[in-house]
């Protein structure tokens, strides 16, 4: 597991929201997309993914709808809402601030 980074608290929402920008995806698709985009470094545990999805849906940042997957199976697709999009920008900004600050600290000699 050394080649995989543990998810920082609070980054999961950001990653999920980001992975939905390209369009509606189902749960497994989200986890796969995050894995691919991070080149296998970030692994979203399913145990955190679904509770997070339900939480986001509850806050109105994403909506869920049953549809048909590429393989012709019934799957639940998650879509980013306008509120979710705004939220993503906020999260992204605060992440940039945070990671920049961490980088600065680490670069200092």
């Amino acid at each position, binding site marked *: 597991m050394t080649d995989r980074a543990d998810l920082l608290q609070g980054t999961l929402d950001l990653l999920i929201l980001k992975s939905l920008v390209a369009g509606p995806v189902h749960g497994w698709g989200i986890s796969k997309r995050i894995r691919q985009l991070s080149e296998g470094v970030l692994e979203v545990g399913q145990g955190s993914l679904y509770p997070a999805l339900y939480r986001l849906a*509850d806050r109105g940042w994403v909506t869920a709808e049953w549809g048909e997957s590429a393989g012709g199976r019934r799957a*639940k697709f998650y879509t980013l809402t306008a509120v979710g999009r705004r939220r993503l920008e906020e999260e992204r900004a605060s992440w940039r601030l945070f990671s920049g600050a961490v980088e600065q600290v680490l670069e200092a000699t």
Partner: protein
Amino acid sequence: MKWLGRSLRRIAGLLRRAPEREMDEEMRLHLEMEAEELVRTRGLAPEEARRQAAIAFGGVEHYKEAVREARPVRPLEDLLRDASHGVRSLRRSPGFAAVAVLTLALGIGGTAAIFSVVRGVLLRPLRYPQAESLVTVWSRFLPESGFDFPTFPVAPPEFWDYREENRSLAELAAFSTVGVTLTDGEAEPQRVQGAMVTGNFFHTLGVDAALGRVLGPGDDPPGGSRRVVLGDGLWRTRYGSDPDILGRSVIVDGEGFEVVGVMPPGFAYPSGETVVWGPIGLDPANRSNRGAHFLQLVGRLAPGVSLSEARAELGTLMSIWESEYPEIHTGHFLVLNSMMDDVVGSVRGTLWVLLGAVGFVLLIACANVASLMLGRNEARRQELAVRVALGAGRRRLIQQLLTDSLVLALAGGALGVALAWAGMRAILSLGAGTIPRADAVALDGAVLLFALGVTLLTALLFGLAPALRGGAQSPGAAIREGGRGGTGGRGGTRLRSGLIVAEVALAVVLVAGAGLMIRSFERLTAVDAGFRPEGLLMAQLALPSRDYGDIASVAAFHSQLATRLGALPGVVSVSGASDLPLYEAPPNVDFEIEGMPPTGPGQPARSGDLVFALPDYPATMGIRMVEGRFFTPSDDVEAPRVAVVNRTAARMFWDERSPIGSRIRTAGDPDRAWSTVIGVIEDVKWAGLDAEHRQAYYMPVAQPAWRPSTLYYTLRVAGDPLALGPAVRRSVAEMDRRLPVIRLSEMDALVEESLARPRFVMVLLTLFGAVALSLGAIGIYGVVSYAVTRRRRELGIRMALGAGRGSTAGLVLAQGMRLALVGVGLGLVVAFATTRLMAGLLYGVSPTDPLTLAAVCGVLLAAAAGACWIPARRAVRLDPVAALRIE
């Protein structure tokens, strides 16, 4: 219980199914896709891929729980899930569930039953429009006068004066009750209760007729009119609900009256038996007879006027009257009551005491169930700990445990309502005749709501402590203990002990209440009534004034009937009087003693209870003559007038001298004739066994100052008195076919009746006390027996080390008895503080009677010892080797 669990699960499922199923489906899809991916990318066999995907995914249930937690709280869904879980877990321990539910049902049912009576009798407004503004007015005398009755009638001039002078009342009506005989048509003659009322009577009460009209001012000129209003019941039974009754003539006391109206069902005032209303015909111009107290008054407060304002105004008027009529209104005045107080005043204290007592029973039930639950939770520690380990939060666990309590309480409440219904019926039949407004008592919405409230409160009361304790689980410790009887339950044991102490203390209070009531009842039944009721038959007759107008015909009738009855086989002797001890008290009438000056204003009036009696009264009733003789048949209307006084009157008015030979005359006698006192008779309890003896004087029926309306014949009988009933009725019918025997009863039964109220309270309090005692004993048994189970090992070691049976039993007994002693001590303190509330219900016993309280402590400790004995015996019989090996 099975159906309950099933239906709860079904409801929960309906709410839960959709999201839960979606969750399942979504996760299954995830697993499948993951497995396919593994097949695709790493070329794994499908079986292996599925396995790895599942391993990577982890515990599905755990995630589902996490998903559920992530969603907002769904109280109803959680509640139903917990409830269905609660029902399932209760079904696994049916013994516990049965005891707990029954205990709660007893508590809730009893409380709801008493509350239904309290609500119907005390809390419901009377059935009149704006009943809260209805008032009654009575006359009152200072206590020194000797007739300090709380409700004494008012004289007509007082009525008219007050009606004209007051500004607080919108209406003030007067009436007088009267027993009348109906003799119309072919129907049997019937004796009924009637009221003679002023023209504004119905308007004051705010009631209208169901058929025709009520009496109005026009029907009540001076002298009255021949119009009557009938009660619904009488109209139905005697006149067959005749729709053409209006305008018909009915014969009341031998005179024809035109029916102008029929009242709606349920209307009966002033008494529940009143079925005929006629005009009273008072003359406002006649204000002379200020001492003739025979009117009852009912009024309605003017809008915006409070009872206390009306009372203040009445007080002012009374001081004016006192200066205007010093000879009458010194120490004599009018008082104003709310009508509700008048109707239920006598039973109010009793009912609140009973409600308080049953509330204690409920508390005891709660303590008992709480203690049971604590014990059960101790036994379930492992289960609870596992739940904590699996991720259940403390809040969630407490919620679950409270829901368990709620399930228990609801089951208890449901059974309790059934018990309450039965209890209410039982209470009403037990208290028949002693509870006013019994017809207003019902298990209605308000009572059901009350029961529900009590149920929820109960769940909280008995569930909170166990739930808080159960929620504080440390999973590691409990699981490591592995259910061994370790020391982990110390806090729980202390809590249970506290509950048991409280239970015993409450039981002491209840048993003390019961004990006091029993002692008081004993005292009451031991009272010497002054006559011998056993073997005595009573027959009540009233001669209508139309047929027996003159005194001579009344006297002749009674003398003939007495002779006839005396000739019946089995009759030892016959007599009769205008009143009957313990049933109807004689009226208090002033009299003068020849040669003694009349008493001054404010002084005790020279008065006594006046009884008109037939010859042989002392012999028939079994009343002792103190000196002199009683009347004989020769003391008739021709003979010189004679009288007999009772012992109290002799002592009160003649001091140490003998009254025999003195002459007295009664105030109401139109002839103002003197009667010579020929004897002194022993005191008799007229107004009730708990009433003080009062001064009384007797005059012969054959020499009446006036015509007594009713005569109570008494027959001393060899054998069963009631067997003689038909023969008595026949004899009366032979004398006068149209004369009803109003009531025929054994005197014994009437004495019993007079004890109905105290017996009612005694039976209920004894019942509550018994329940409290049993619950307390069960509670002690539970705690001690549980402790024995837990301490098996310790006890085994002790015995293995040589502890004797006696010391082992002592150890167990001591534990239980310590609790009982503390509880009894605490209970005594509470009892001292609370039993005084029932002082008004006790006769001849102080509310803190030391003997009773000592006996109560004895009973409680004996019950506790009994409850400890069973587990102690079990402890003694422990096989030390087996006990050590168990764990």
